[in-house]
């Protein structure tokens, strides 16, 4: 209040505020363009390189074409695009969007920009269930419907993550009140327990089983199929569709739980919805592609830097940017050691961890 009011200050105030308004619309357009470029790039780039224009033509031809029998190069292009790269890109976009939106929601609920879906026990819980499936699943696989038998590992991971989260949320709720601190500590404790259980499983597993499990914990889109993408899609779309209804509550939560209640938010209900939504979204992503590290942490950070912390824009921005980052990382994972493939989670961690440290050093204020 040092500046004395000068004539005209009052009139200038609204426009002054507008000048500093965040580039929300521009940011969303930028993220959408990045997602589109990464999506086309993920289909165009590979051992058989296909021009982005051809990508669209091949897809259009496959969907609407007369089904004239293709031969030679054209057939190879169609098989590569339709059977390999398009499902993989779809799955990558879904995994990225789901994980990033879940991360942004978690950070909003915990009022902490360092919160991550892994914190509420999803990753360790899903991990334990996945290893258990690798080791013992063969004995129970026949109980599944025939079409889903190949997805046993994914289903187990999904169920494990969801179950762990619900147990932790149950532990943290007393008399209708969910304590965020208890939720966090219960998540850490159960996560440690699940990791110990995973250790035991790895110990009794055969060498082949261990290798299968390791690949899964490092995350990969390598096993992408249309079925996997179709299974993940409803969960990710539900999470994204739900997010506008969470935005106001999450904004208010930034002031504190009591303050959110005072402006009319049913805080306990909000927390319950968020925990279940995040568990389902991340569970689906983890089940489809394993643990892709740092996306839930890094993408909301980046989005917040560009468009600000308001959740109405942040959640869709995180979805778009999450898709772009995972697709970009998957392109790198396929290119760096081509023709071999690096695990996707290794690439996101190699980029994410240093980026995150740099962010912490340079912008402490954002650490919350």
């Amino acid at each position: 209040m040092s500046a004395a009011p000068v004539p005209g200050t009052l009139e200038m105030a609204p426009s002054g505020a507008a000048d500093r308004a965040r580039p929300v619309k521009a940011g969303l357009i930028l993220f959408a363009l990045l997602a589109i470029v990464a999506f086309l790039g993920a289909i165009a780039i590979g051992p058989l390189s296909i021009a982005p224009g051809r990508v669209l033509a091949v897809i259009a031809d496959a969907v609407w074409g007369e089904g004239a029998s293709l031969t030679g190069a054209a057939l190879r292009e169609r098989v590569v695009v339709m059977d390999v790269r398009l499902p993989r890109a779809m799955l990558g976009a879904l995994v990225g969007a789901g994980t990033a939106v879940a991360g942004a929601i978690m950070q909003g609920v915990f009022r902490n920009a360092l919160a991550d879906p892994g914190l509420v026990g999803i990753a360790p819980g899903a991990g334990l269930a996945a290893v258990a499936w690798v080791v013992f699943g063969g004995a129970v696989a026949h109980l599944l419907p025939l079409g889903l038998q190949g997805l046993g590992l994914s289903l187990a991971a999904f169920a494990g993550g969801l179950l762990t989260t619900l147990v932790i949320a149950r532990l943290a709720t007393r008399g209708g009140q969910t304590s965020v601190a208890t939720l966090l500590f219960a998540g850490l404790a159960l996560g440690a327990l699940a990791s110990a259980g995973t250790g035991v499983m790895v110990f009794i597993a055969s060498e082949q089983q261990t290798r299968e499990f390791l690949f899964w914990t490092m995350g990969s889109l390598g096993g992408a199929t249309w079925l996997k993408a179709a299974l993940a899609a409803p969960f990710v779309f539900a999470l994204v569709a739900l997010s506008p209804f969470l935005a106001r509550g999450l904004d208010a939560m930034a002031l504190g739980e009591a303050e959110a209640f005072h402006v009319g938010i049913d805080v306990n209900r909000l927390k319950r919805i968020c925990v279940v939504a995040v568990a389902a979204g991340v569970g689906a992503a983890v089940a489809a592609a394993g643990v892709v590290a740092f996306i839930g942490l890094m993408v909301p950070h980046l989005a917040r830097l560009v468009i600000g912390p308001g959740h109405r824009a942040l959640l869709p921005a995180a979805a778009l940017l999450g898709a772009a980052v995972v697709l970009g990382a998957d392109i790198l994972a396929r290119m760096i050691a081509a023709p071999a493939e690096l695990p996707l989670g290794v690439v996101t961690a190699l980029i994410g961890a240093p980026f995150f440290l740099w962010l912490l050093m340079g912008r402490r204020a954002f650490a919350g």
Partner: protein
Amino acid sequence: MHPSGLSARGVSVAIRGKRLVSDVDLDVVPGTVTILVGPNGAGKSTLLKALTGEMRLAAGRVTLDGADIHAMPPRDLAFRRAVLPQAAEVAFPFTVEEVIAIGLIGAQAPDRAAHVARLLQQVDLPGFGGRRYDSLSGGERQRVQLARVLAQIDCARRAYPDGAAPPAFLFLDEPTSSLDLGHQLTVLALAREHARAGGGVLAVLHDLNLAAMVADRMVVLAGGRVVAEGAPGTVLTDDVLARAFGVKVRVGAVPVGPFVLPQSIGAEGLRP
């Protein structure tokens, strides 16, 4: 009895079996300013939390126009009362305008920027809309929070047709604690204005002289119980202050009302 306004009867609050507030009766009457005073740990903030619906009661009832506030949905409650917290950290780098907008409940006014600018003018922070909240001083943050609370009151009034809005209640927990003298008076003037417009105000204050100046009624809380209540002139007596605060001070009177003279304890009184 069907009390209009906000009314507490036999209210007790306990945390982990420890009674912080015991058997309090209190009315916040529309059109008036009630000031809650008392020593540290008297249970003032706890009582305030019980009255806003934030904290569960161990016994008793808090009603708003006869309805139990602890049974009201948070959203309905938000249209009847707003609460200024003691101090609020904001978790993410929100701007001042974004923080104030959190108080905009119900249907959004088409002129959000103009509305926010007007509120900022009221709390004497013109042009602060684009500033980062976390870059402000404590006193500036307190006034931004007040602007948010006033935004909520505005929206609550707008949710009803002209003149049909029921009285809204303003709860202020030490609203002047980080403010300089001029801004303390600004805030109390806003509270008075809210009462003049027909709303009810309950504020916790530590400064007895400011309390005496702004209050229609004062409630003195000590050890979780009401030890005195009434007009400032009847509450601020040497005897009540000695019982509540455990200090021997003299209360004087000037033409505008009572005042407390901490100096009256003399240099002797400062010795432990």
